[in-house]
């Protein structure tokens, strides 16, 4: 009888996963678009390759990002990933160095103790053994934390932990069994042969003192091998597939590949690279402020991976971008959701394939009928202007923002045209957020036409939603500025004379302006110029969503109010005189949610303008009326 038969499950698993990885990688590579293929090829022989290696070391092994966010969780991931990596590396060296011959098959390194039971009695090997035992102990300490996390997530500082499918459970069980079974297998062997270091040696002799160690040892070697084999077999169909896929993702990303606007092998790689770590769940306001716990990015990605109908999940998201900000794998969650929204309804999985095909065919006929169409829009002939001011739809419901902008621009002597004074056409961003890019294009074309014809050098908007789409999806000659940037410019060039307001204010970064467009400093510079700016506990890239986001199509108004109330509470913790924002939608939402005065940044600046006395103003408006009446 060959007692080495136990290596078979491990070998099968290992060769399976290696072949699978190669096949899958080739398939992904082949289905990349041509430019992306070139990017990846070029990336392989340049700097991106080194960047990727460094990133793999820092993130995939050391888990630096998770570490920063939550040290205990970081340690858990690091001990498992980095520890296992070291165990394999040093195990291979050990087998190569101390083994009978060089270039052993992997099983000889993994099951080294079985093949060399007496090894490590003295000298260098003895010291090496301490090191190998230390690595095993290091991994086991992480495993212990993982077990604790699974059963009591709160102890790890996690609000929620992700839910598992049966494949995940089987993979998880086999993963959990790998290291304890190795510990016991090595210990029993060491116990039987009187070898081993501080961990395996001591445990081994303790076990051997009352158990027939030599007889028991093979059972645990079998368990160890089966656990490894099972884990490798389960890998592609469980969440642990993320481990190898993430490496692939890192190479792709560093080569300059981005998500784009349709599904590709890059989105597929991102889908599989998600480790379901649940960090996105803990930062989601929908979860902790509105009690909605089934739509977070981890579930979205999981649904995508498993090809489920996730249209409800896809739609029910604020698109605030907080999860993307913290995702340790760096998955572009926002663009991924937008792609899914563009997809519309997915094929009904309950139908048979021919049925599905006939539905698709029927659909392709009716899909040709446009869902939205704006053929009714009439081309406009705008007047020429240096500066074009586009308030935006929402801003028309916050007339104090418009009034403030008018006063500021008049005070600075800006010659501007008010593009949508009598109401304009929507910028297109809300349609894009709903996944209707083609329809949005119609509106973009309409507005672009007006902006080009006006000959404007600067396009100023008061709405961050418009701002983002103007910047990203319009092809314009004009420089697009949010009014906070524009006011900052006016202050810097000295065309605004402003007083100092003795007010303490806190600033709320609107999602589309902050995370969405990276505008953090200009609003703060403007505010600090006219008032005392207090810090908020959650700001800049981790600022909160007001809840009123147009990114969410389905969220009920009551839930929005819950998010708004929670965000307003956190923002006003320092009891500011005013809560300042830079978005009409945020303003409208917060006004309803807090007793603190809510103002737009433009209003704050307008308040710092030297005020014309009331009498002058009244006389001026009387004169205007007389003039108007004369004209009439």
């Amino acid at each position, binding site marked *: 009888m060959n007692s080495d038969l136990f290596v078979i499950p491990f070998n099968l698993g290992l060769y399976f996963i290696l072949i699978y990885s190669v096949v899958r990688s080739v398939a992904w590579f082949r289905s990349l678009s041509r430019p992306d293929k070139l990017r990846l090829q070029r990336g392989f022989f340049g700097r991106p390759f080194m960047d990727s290696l460094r990133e793999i070391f820092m993130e995939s092994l050391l888990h630096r990002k998770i570490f920063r966010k939550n040290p205990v969780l970081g340690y858990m991931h690091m001990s498992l990933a980095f520890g296992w990596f070291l165990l394999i590396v040093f195990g291979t060296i050990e087998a190569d160095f101390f083994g009978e011959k060089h270039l052993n098959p992997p099983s000889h390194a993994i099951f080294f103790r079985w093949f060399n039971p007496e090894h490590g009695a003295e000298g260098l090997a003895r010291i090496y053994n301490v090191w190998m035992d230390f690595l095993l102990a290091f991994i086991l300490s992480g495993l212990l934390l993982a077990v604790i996390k699974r059963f009591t997530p709160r102890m790890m500082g996690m609000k929620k932990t992700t839910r598992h499918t049966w494949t995940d459970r089987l993979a998880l069980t086999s993963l959990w069994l790998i290291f304890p079974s190795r510990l016991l297998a090595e210990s029993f062997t060491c116990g039987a042969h009187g070898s081993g270091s501080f961990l395996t040696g001591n445990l081994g002799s303790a076990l051997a003192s009352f158990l027939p160690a030599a007889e028991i040892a093979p059972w645990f070697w079998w368990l160890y091998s089966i656990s490894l084999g099972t884990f490798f077999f389960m890998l592609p169909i469980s969440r642990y597939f993320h481990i190898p896929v993430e490496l692939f993702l890192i190479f792709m990303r560093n080569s300059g590949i981005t998500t784009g606007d349709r599904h590709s092998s890059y989105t597929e790689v991102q889908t599989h690279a998600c480790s379901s770590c649940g960090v996105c769940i803990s930062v989601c306001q929908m979860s902790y402020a509105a009690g909605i716990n089934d739509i977070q990015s981890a579930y979205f990605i999981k649904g995508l991976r498993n090809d489920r109908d996730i249209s409800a999940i896809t739609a029910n998201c604020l698109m605030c971008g907080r999860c993307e900000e913290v995702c340790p794998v760096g998955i572009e969650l926002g663009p991924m959701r937008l792609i899914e929204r563009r997809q519309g309804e997915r094929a009904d999985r309950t139908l048979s394939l021919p049925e599905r095909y006939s539905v698709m065919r029927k659909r392709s006929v009716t899909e040709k009928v446009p869902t939205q169409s704006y053929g009714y829009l009439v081309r406009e002939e705008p007047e020429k202007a240096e500066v074009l001011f586009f308030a935006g739809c929402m801003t028309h419901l*916050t007339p104090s923002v418009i009034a403030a902008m008018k006063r500021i621009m008049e005070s600075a002597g800006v010659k501007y045209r008010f593009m949508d004074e009598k109401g304009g056409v929507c910028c297109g961003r809300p349609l894009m957020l709903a996944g209707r890019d083609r329809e949005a294009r119609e509106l973009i074309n309409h507005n672009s036409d007006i902006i080009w014809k006006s000959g404007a050098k600067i396009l100023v908007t008061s709405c961050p939603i418009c701002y983002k789409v103007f910047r990203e999806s319009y092809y314009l000659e004009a420089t697009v500025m949010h009014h906070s940037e524009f006011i900052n410019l006016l202050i810097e060039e000295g065309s605004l004379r402003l007083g100092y307001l003795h007010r303490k204010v806190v600033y709320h970064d609107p999602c589309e302006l902050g995370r969405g467009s990276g505008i953090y400093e200009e609003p703060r510079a403007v505010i600090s110029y006219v008032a005392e700016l207090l810090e908020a506990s959650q700001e800049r890239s981790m600022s909160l969503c007001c809840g009123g986001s147009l990114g969410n199509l389905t969220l009920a108004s009551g839930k929005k109010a819950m998010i708004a109330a929670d965000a307003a509470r956190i923002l006003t913790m320092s009891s500011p005189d005013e809560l300042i924002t830079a978005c009409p939608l945020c303003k409208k939402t917060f006004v309803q949610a807090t007793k603190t005065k809510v103002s737009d940044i433009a209003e704050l600046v307008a308040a710092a303008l030297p005020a014309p006395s009331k009498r002058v103003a009244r006389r001026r408006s009387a004169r205007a009326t007389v003039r108007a009446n004369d004209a009439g």
Partner: protein
Amino acid sequence: MKTVPKHVLVAGGGVAGMEAAGALAEMGYRVTLVEKGDDPGGHLLQWHALFPDRRPADEVRSYLRKRAGHHNINIITRTTVEKVRHHPGGVRVILSGGTEEEADAVIVATGFDLFDAHRKEEYGYGIYDNVITSVDLEAMFNRGRLEKADGTVPSRIGLIHCVGSRDEKVNNNHCSKVCCVTAVKQAIEIRQMLPSCEVFCFYMDMRMYGPYYEELYRESQEVHNVNFIRGKVSEASVNINNRLVIKVEDTLAGRPLKMELDIMVLMVGMEMAESGAKLAEASGFRQGINRFLESGDHHYGNNLSGIKGVFYAGTCTAPMNITDTISHARAAVAETVRYLKA
């Protein structure tokens, strides 16, 4: 043997408080009337004439003043009631500034606050000169001059119903009951003052529930030529001629409508008074989802607070007109006397 008269403290010196205090004093009770303002009288002090008969508000004011002037009533002004607490000997009342009063019973008549029109930013109150509230209009009637901010005479005025009422966006889902008829009354008054000025009422529903209200509505059309448009105004702006422009849907015509106005009057609704809400919170009174005080029973215990010796009177429980407020105050007095005699 002469007994010491029992002592009742009335929190709030508006219509309900004055009527309750007067009625109790008349029956020989010793009454302390606590008013947060300089004088008792409440919101009625700001009013020129009353619906539905447009009698001068002064007539009701002088009735109430006489009522509250009874020698059994001690009026404390510029003071609010912070907290009330029942104990076996009566009710302990804590007033602003920390003074304590001992009473045998308390009537809560903290009334309402008018909706702050600044909160409906899209209507431009505080932004555009010629956007005023129904209270501002009443002040104009008091001055006897109805003009635009620049002193010119308006030729078209719009009255916007339901400002701060029936509006989820300002957290008020309730109807304030009195604004519809107030609008009709004010529309008639405008037409009488300025016969050449057009008047438009923008309403969602005309709630003419009281006696002679429907008749007033009819009169406004028949005699005064007031116009009614069914639709909620969404926003106002100012055009190049410095005239207000409002956007509304004429829901009966089924088309959006744009109209220039010289003056836009916001018919501000009623909200639970801030001072009353604080008292409620400190004393453990129940507040309904509309934040008004929740009485023991909506039908037959409308004045009962659920706390022994504490009774509710007037608009602290729900929006109501003066007639109903006075009746409600009298009912509170009846409940109080029944409690004190038991």
